[in-house]
């Protein structure tokens, strides 16, 4: 499930840069967040097969038309698959084919929508959107700072691993390999120590630039026609799906 993170630095950078080149990436983040949230919430509440089919179809069309890199999208989806498969399989075994299929469709639709949002939005932009949606400054500032240094620290970690390999380290392949596990944990320990040490400098850096409480973007987007239409489409779809679901139950 965390497999997708392994090449954090490079993949995220590429995605972030790609995001500004596609129509979806240029939408106001608030519109994207609210639209996708509505869709995911609605889909999570669906249990009727036909509705789930519709929802999955919408998700696929969304993902395809957004122009996010397919390779990354599929890799991320596959990373989430184990949980989904176990769930679907167990429902299939105990509850029958239809329920199993429903489970798979529902999780896939939600995951696809969320992944499209994630890969198609520049990260800082996304966090900035959260802030503008009134998420507390403390949290969004933490998010932005953590993200900013995540790339740096992950680069440092990659260098450490290379240096390790250059010294002939090939261990850590076995839980019982005591020396190997020790080296693994020492590397992790080193990462944490360096992170903590840098924190002192970052604090001074922030203060030296007059930082007080809120980290926010200077150039902000405004809600335009494209954003409003995006939201309208997704809200409409969500409402319709929910209405049909509830009607059926009652």
């Amino acid at each position, binding site marked *: *499930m*965390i497999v997708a*993170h*392994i090449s*954090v630095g490079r993949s995220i950078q590429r995605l972030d840069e790609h995001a500004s080149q596609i129509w979806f990436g240029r939408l106001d983040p608030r519109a994207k967040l609210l639209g996708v949230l509505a869709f*995911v*919430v609605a*889909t999570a509440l669906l*249990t009727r097969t036909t509705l789930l089919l519709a929802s999955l179809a919408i998700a696929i069309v969304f993902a395809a038309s957004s122009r996010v890199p397919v390779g990354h999208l599929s890799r991320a989806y596959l990373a*989430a698959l184990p*949980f989904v498969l*176990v769930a679907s399989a*167990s*429902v299939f*075994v*105990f*509850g*029958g084919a239809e*329920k199993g299929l429903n*489970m798979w469709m*529902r*999780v896939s639709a*939600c*995951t696809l929508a*969320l*992944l499209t*949002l*994630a890969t198609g939005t520049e990260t800082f932009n*996304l*966090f900035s959107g959260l802030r503008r949606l009134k998420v507390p400054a*403390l949290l969004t500032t*933490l*998010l932005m*700072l*953590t*993200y900013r240094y*995540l790339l740096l*620290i*992950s680069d440092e*970690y990659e260098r450490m691993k290379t240096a390790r390999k250059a010294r002939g380290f090939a261990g*850590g*392949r076995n*839980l019982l390999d005591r020396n190997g*596990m020790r080296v*693994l*944990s*020492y590397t*992790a*320990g*080193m*990462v*944490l*120590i360096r*992170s*903590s*040490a*840098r*924190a*002192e400098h970052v*604090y001074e850096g922030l203060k030296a630039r007059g930082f007080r409480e809120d980290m926010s973007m200077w150039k902000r987007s405004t809600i335009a026609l494209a954003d409003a239409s995006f939201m309208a489409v997704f809200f409409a779809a969500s409402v319709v799906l929910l209405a049909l679901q509830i009607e059926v139950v009652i």
Partner: protein
Amino acid sequence: MHIPDGLMDPIVAAIGLVEFLFVVGAALVVSRRALRDKELPRTALLSAGIFVAQMVNFPVGGGTTGHLIGGALFAIMVGPAMAIVGMTVVLLIQALMFGDGGITAFGLNGLNMAVIAPLTGWGVFNLVKPIAVRSKRLGEGMAVAVASWASVFVAAAACAAELAVSYAISSGAYGIAATVSVPAMLGYHAIIGIGEAIITVGVIAYVHQVSPETFLHRAGTNTSRSGTARILSSKTIHATIAVLVVFALALPFYFLYASDGKDGLEQTVAGTGVSEGEPIAKSPFSYGESYFAALFAGIMGFLAVALATLGILKLIDSRKMSG
């Protein structure tokens, strides 16, 4: 154990969200003063560090690899409140940047990995530590190991329980049947927990050795204070409360499950239309019997380990004294 959207029953997800927001809110309030100043960048940097540390993968046999969750590690390093906030940041980034873990399921994911894991880790660590350090050979490392394992195992038990409840109350539309979720989650994570324990012990030992000022919370003896003050502020009390909180979080789910009237196995069987005599899947233990069994397994798990540890320590101690 990042749960995607659409897997859990909406009511379970909603309860999880409410509980999670409550606990995170409390954690933010507790650490607010610190976070306003120097601790803000420190929490961010350590969260980034933990994120990267989570990328360390260790083999768990059968060609699969496991990853560090880091809840216990974080809590032992900076204390429970800060760890809850930090782990929440990590989970948010994972959900919003990688789609790892859903948004409607965020409450449950947060509960399991950002609340239960660190609280259990910290609680067990502080409960076991005073006893563990009496033995010179095993010492603090033992406490760290037990705490880390417990943090993973209990979080997994919580996740299994949530899946089981989702399955039971939705007549099989959501969640995973207890007969599958409990053994799968507990079995897999019992082994993952070992890896987590080994790595966490190594990290803490390394940090202690190289740069102890990284630690915010130093385990110290408060001998200077008066008796009652010492007892009230003691880490042991706080730790006990933390562990109790973890299990209290399970109560709403239990009542939700129990109120439905049917227990897990009956639900499972009724859904397939097979008579009770010939179950499709039968597990060696009667996990499916009641949701509470999942919870119980969690408690039993870490109690067993703790008792075993104490037992071993007592043995070593007595042998040393006689020998």
